[in-house]
């Protein structure tokens, strides 16, 4: 699942740009943005991923009143059967964006998601690797496609060791 509606907000863009360490005034100063080529605040290139904020069921955000798999009293609030007990994890392998235009605060985007390709590969360090694509298309209020995002996730059978 993903968010169905993504309201693009100026404060959200400001916080996102701060988090990625981008001081460009176009992301936080409407007056300065007016003097840029786009003529207004626009979203940074990877901002579209923050549509997760508007997904009511997003699994990587604690849900009110429900157990959370991060630590509290115990190192995890959810029994370890979640990963099959082998320590394997899902990781983000690849992300691509295609921009048909860049959006600005005040717009509300509509999202459509669909699965893409999936494949398997034998990894050097993490055992068998299962890859799957997820495609999210962002449409503006006039129904025009503005951005297409393709994420590739990978599930490993073992913990990926760092070198």
């Amino acid at each position, binding site marked *: 699942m993903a968010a169905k509606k993504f309201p693009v907000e100026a404060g959200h863009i400001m916080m996102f740009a701060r988090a990625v360490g981008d001081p460009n005034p176009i992301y936080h100063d409407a007056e300065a943005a007016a003097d840029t080529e786009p003529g207004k605040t626009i979203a940074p290139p990877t901002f579209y991923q923050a549509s997760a904020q508007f997904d009511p069921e997003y699994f*990587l955000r604690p849900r009110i009143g429900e157990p959370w798999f991060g630590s509290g009293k115990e190192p995890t609030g959810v029994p370890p059967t979640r990963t099959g007990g082998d320590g394997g994890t899902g990781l983000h392998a690849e*992300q*691509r964006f295609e921009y048909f235009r860049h959006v600005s605060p005040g717009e509300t985007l509509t999202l459509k998601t669909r699965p893409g390709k999936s494949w398997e590969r034998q990894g050097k360090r993490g055992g068998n690797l299962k890859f799957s694509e997820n495609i999210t298309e962002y449409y503006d209020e006039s129904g025009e496609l503005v951005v297409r995002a393709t994420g590739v996730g990978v599930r490993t059978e073992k913990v990926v060791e760092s070198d």
Partner: protein
Amino acid sequence: MALQASKVQVGDTYTQKLTDDLSRTQIVQYAGASGDYNPLHSDEIFTTKVAKYPTVFAHGMLTMGMTGRMVTDFVGDGRLTAYGVRFTRQVWPGDALTATAKVDAVREEDGKNLVDLSVTTVNQDGDVVVMGKATAKIDP
């Protein structure tokens, strides 16, 4: 200022230092802004005791976002038409990151001037943490 086709050449590079010392707090900032609260990125106890990693690590999307600053500083605001990366190595707190764009092609398509870039971000050891491609509209 956007790039100009007449002034950019295949092989040109643009490099930007993204951070000298990535903080756990910046990773938390990214969790808050993006909405991705996976404890692997902020919860040391979960990450070391349950997931068995040496410590928390950055969201791949944080590194992609930080690298995106270099790309947009190079090509200009609102000029990107495509940006994609593979996450090749984890980024850990304390890492220093440097991003580089290299011009692969300067071309015309449907009357538009475009530049194709290879994008690479390396850590303090020179190991590649993300690598990918970007395309942007440029001026004639």
